[in-house]
């Protein structure tokens, strides 16, 4: 296709959005059906996921070859940045909502249920025996919930995982410096180290969840502490998984010789995302495990 750099590049019609919509329909429809006990639901959800992953790699691969083919001008670059900006905005709001839920339960609703402030009768009438605590291990009506035998301790896996993620932020910064200094081999080492640290983090997190569920009886159904704990750490884990996949894609591109000191928005976007996920974990580590 003939294209001038003075014009904003508009690709030809594509089937990827339609395929993506079909994949999303299977994924969400299948997942919803499995929640309703349908035997077919899980299979449909997996099929949907496969279609979505295929679409993402196909579509993004096309964008990469357009970028490397020199079709994009600065204005297209600006569009990518605006898209990334909205994506980041949604991510910040997403985590703010979950941190907010934990903060509200911990600082307000639980003390109120125990009669704090002007809620004396709430405590006296609803659960007179209940006294507020966080983490909420002594629940007002424990027969309704899976009561944890113990909590996940800050020393041990959470502290190790914090060190792993902080180290991965440092190795990613090393790769970033190497990009500007045109040292591609250092870039590759830095990226491989970052990906490896991310994968080890996920391994520890999976082990931690198995320990919490199997040994501690700390579950999603362990009241407001269990649900907010797993929501926050679980969605964070999903983000690390996604970030690792994105880092692997960037590594493949680096190996193929993509990115220059003047043209590397994809690298920057993924690097920023990884740093963001790292900061979310640091916030979690401090707020959930340390400072009360």
């Amino acid at each position, binding site marked *: 296709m003939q294209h001038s750099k003075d014009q904003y590049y508009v690709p030809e019609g594509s089937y990827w959005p339609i395929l993506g919509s079909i994949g999303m329909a299977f994924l969400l429809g299948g997942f919803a059906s499995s929640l309703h006990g349908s035997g077919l639901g899980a299979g449909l959800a997996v099929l949907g996921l496969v279609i979505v992953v295929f679409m993402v790699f196909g579509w993004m691969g096309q964008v990469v070859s357009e970028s490397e083919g020199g079709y994009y001008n*600065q204005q297209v670059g600006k569009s990518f*940045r*605006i898209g*990334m*900006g909205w994506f*980041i905005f949604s991510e910040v709001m997403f985590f703010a909502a979950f941190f907010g839920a934990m903060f509200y339960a*911990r600082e307000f609703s639980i*003390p109120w249920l*125990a009669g704090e402030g002007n809620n004396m009768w709430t405590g006296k009438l609803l659960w007179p025996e209940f*006294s*507020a*605590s*966080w*983490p909420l*291990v*002594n629940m007002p009506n424990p027969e309704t919930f899976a009561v944890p035998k113990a*909590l996940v*301790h*800050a*020393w041990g896996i959470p502290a190790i995982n*914090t*060190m792993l993620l*902080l180290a991965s*932020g*440092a190795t990613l*910064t090393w790769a*970033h*410096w190497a990009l*500007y200094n045109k040292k591609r081999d250092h870039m590759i080492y830095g990226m491989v180290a970052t990906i490896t640290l991310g994968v080890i983090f996920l391994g520890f997190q999976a082990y931690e969840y198995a320990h919490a569920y199997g040994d501690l009886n700390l579950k999603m159904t362990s009241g407001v502490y269990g649900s907010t704990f797993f929501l926050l750490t679980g969605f964070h884990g999903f983000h690390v998984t996604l970030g690792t996949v994105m880092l692997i894609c960037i590594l493949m591109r680096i190996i193929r010789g993509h990115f220059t*000191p*003047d*043209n590397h*928005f994809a690298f*920057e*976007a993924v*690097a*920023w995302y990884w*740093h*963001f996920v*790292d*900061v979310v974990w*640091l*916030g979690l580590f*401090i707020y959930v*495990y*340390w*400072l*009360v």
Partner: protein
Amino acid sequence: MVFNLGREYVLIKIIVTGFFLFILYSLGSALYYMMNDEPGSQRMMKSLAKRIAASIALFAFIMFSYWMGWIQPDGVIGSTE
């Protein structure tokens, strides 16, 4: 475990919050530079480098505070009876 929220604890809370605000500021300015800077600008990378340096320092400070006995992990607010 119920632990005593002493004077050091309040000070540590302020220091940790200060560190964290600086980390958020560096991350936010890296985002701003990524969105607006001309190609070839290194400001985003430098902001991210400050971000990771501050994060490592904060982690080290928390470990140090624990070692000094100023804070305890897994604290429980209120009564655990």
